[in-house]
């Protein structure tokens, strides 16, 4: 379609020709000459007939802060200029636009960095091809695609496990004797023992044969309970962001250790995934926790509605919550009464903002702090460890403390 430049040049030419004719001054035609030459030498028939565009991201699934490459190939002969405007979703940036041209084909690269988990529609990429010395331009919107950004983990450097583990194969050294690789002690030799298990140093010291024993390697079940009924804090570091990142980090770490990991989402509609192992479970859990953002309903009831298969006996439960309503506290009470080992991770990092000069605001803040203290006191009374997590520390020490603090009667 014609650009404003065409109409403006035509306006200049018409004005100048008209003024020259009306005033009978041929010198005024000077102003019309250049626009008329441009208009006459760039007819519509000389424009490029067709163009092809290919646009792709190098991957459509990534983790927060991954660098993706967007490649655009435009093939058009006879264009004066090709421009591109990339529409990006929120929390996504594009940097380093670079292009190379070989013949009629131009290839451009952008580096796209999504900084927050979620599902985003990237694009469209609006291409504008200018031809005919800037007198004509065509615009086309090219869809790029949907980008799935998984939350980054990193909440836990290495997996920790309770002292006593259920009789299921895994990678954690348990107290029971088995066929693992971690040293578990020595005992006197008995007929049938393997000769390579003999501990020669102990045998020489004791003047009788001793054999080495090894710890059995067991796995356990971890269930993360996400309290996503409330989202507070700045985008990118809100309680929902921290909850999702902590859950993903725990899931990654424990699935890598061949433990079974499940998830229960409180707040909004109640949903759960039964504990399972394997790489597929990681994606199932990631997809599940990413769905909670879209969910603002209040159906499904409390954690007492979760079937036993999703909360197996003996599982360790990690509750991720901002502790801003009673629902998480009720869930902790319920789980504690059923004998689960629990760690509560408080993901609220900021206090509510109140005006400095507002007496009522300060009073409300004091009441709010007292309510938080009451929640902490109740958790302490229940014997449930509470950890404040701002997204930067490691949950390993707190998990280990909570797991080692399990009383025998609450173990399965």
């Amino acid at each position: 379609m014609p650009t404003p430049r065409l109409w403006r040049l035509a306006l200049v030419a018409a004005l100048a020709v008209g003024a020259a004719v009306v005033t009978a001054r041929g010198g005024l035609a000077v102003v019309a000459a250049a626009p008329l030459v441009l208009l006459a030498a760039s007819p519509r028939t000389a424009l490029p007939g067709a163009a092809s565009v290919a646009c792709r991201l190098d991957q459509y699934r990534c983790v927060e802060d991954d660098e993706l490459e967007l490649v655009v190939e435009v093939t058009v002969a006879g264009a004066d200029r090709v421009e591109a405007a990339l529409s990006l979703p929120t929390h996504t940036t594009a940097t380093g636009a670079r292009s190379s041209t070989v013949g009629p084909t131009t290839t451009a690269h952008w580096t796209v960095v999504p900084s927050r988990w979620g599902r985003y529609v990237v694009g469209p990429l609006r291409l504008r091809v200018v031809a005919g010395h800037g007198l004509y331009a065509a615009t086309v919107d090219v869809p790029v695609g949907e980008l799935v950004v998984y939350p980054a983990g990193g909440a836990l450097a290495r997996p920790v496990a309770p002292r006593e583990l259920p009789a299921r194969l895994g990678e954690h050294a348990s107290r029971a004797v088995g066929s693992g690789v971690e040293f578990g002690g020595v005992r006197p030799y008995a007929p049938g023992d393997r000769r390579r298990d003999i501990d020669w140093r102990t045998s020489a010291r004791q003047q009788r044969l001793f054999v080495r024993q090894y710890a059995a390697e067991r796995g356990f079940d971890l269930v993360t309970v996400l309290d996503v009924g409330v989202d507070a804090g700045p985008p990118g570091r809100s309680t929902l962001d921290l909850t999702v990142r902590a859950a993903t980090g725990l899931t990654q770490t424990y699935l890598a250790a061949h433990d079974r990991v499940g998830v229960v989402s409180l707040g909004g509609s109640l949903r759960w995934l039964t504990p399972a192992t394997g790489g597929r479970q990681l994606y199932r859990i990631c997809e599940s926790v990413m769905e909670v953002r879209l969910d603002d309903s209040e159906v499904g009831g409390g954690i007492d509605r979760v079937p036993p298969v999703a909360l197996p006996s003996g599982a360790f439960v990690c509750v991720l919550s901002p502790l801003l309503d009673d629902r998480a506290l009720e869930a902790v009470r319920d789980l504690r009464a059923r004998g689960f080992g629990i760690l509560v991770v408080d993901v609220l990092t900021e206090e509510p903002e109140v005006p400095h000069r507002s007496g009522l605001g300060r009073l409300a803040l004091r009441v709010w702090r007292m309510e938080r203290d009451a929640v902490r006191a109740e958790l302490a009374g229940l014997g449930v460890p509470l950890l404040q997590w701002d997204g930067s520390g490691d949950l390993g020490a707190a998990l280990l403390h909570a797991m080692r603090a399990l009383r025998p009667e609450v173990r399965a």
Partner: protein
Amino acid sequence: MTAAVTRHPATARAVAGCAAAGACLLVLTPGQPAVAAVTVGAATVAAAAVAVGWRWLGSAATLLVTAALLLAGATAPDLVGPGRLTAASALLLVFVSGLDTAPGPRRTVRRDTLTTAPLPRRVGLPAVGVAAAACVGLVARQPATASAWLVLVGLVAAVAALLVSTRGH
């Protein structure tokens, strides 16, 4: 060869603004209050069009700058001769081109230029146009005796040029 393609909108704006100011300065004649008023007004509107980026304001600025050129050429032909008019019309071309390249006010997405035509191709035709304007100025400077045939030939040439332009587009 790979190259960074980010275009700075400020550059296009600066080029367009300087071109409009230059064109107005070239035709600013002392002792002609009407011409001075139109020229100053044209420069002001051109500056506003460059700064704001509204399309209709750009067209108005083009109209006013052209009017200033023509008014100066018509009222003070001794001061604003074909040479000045040629230079001013070349700057007017640059101004119109710069207006088209500068980003509009509602553009929130950054626009990157992926490729541009080589410099000779971009500059060649405008240079031919400016050369044609210089030729027209040279011819107009020659003394001519008014005759019906000359007026007719001039009118036919102008109408033919307009017809070729409009039919081509």
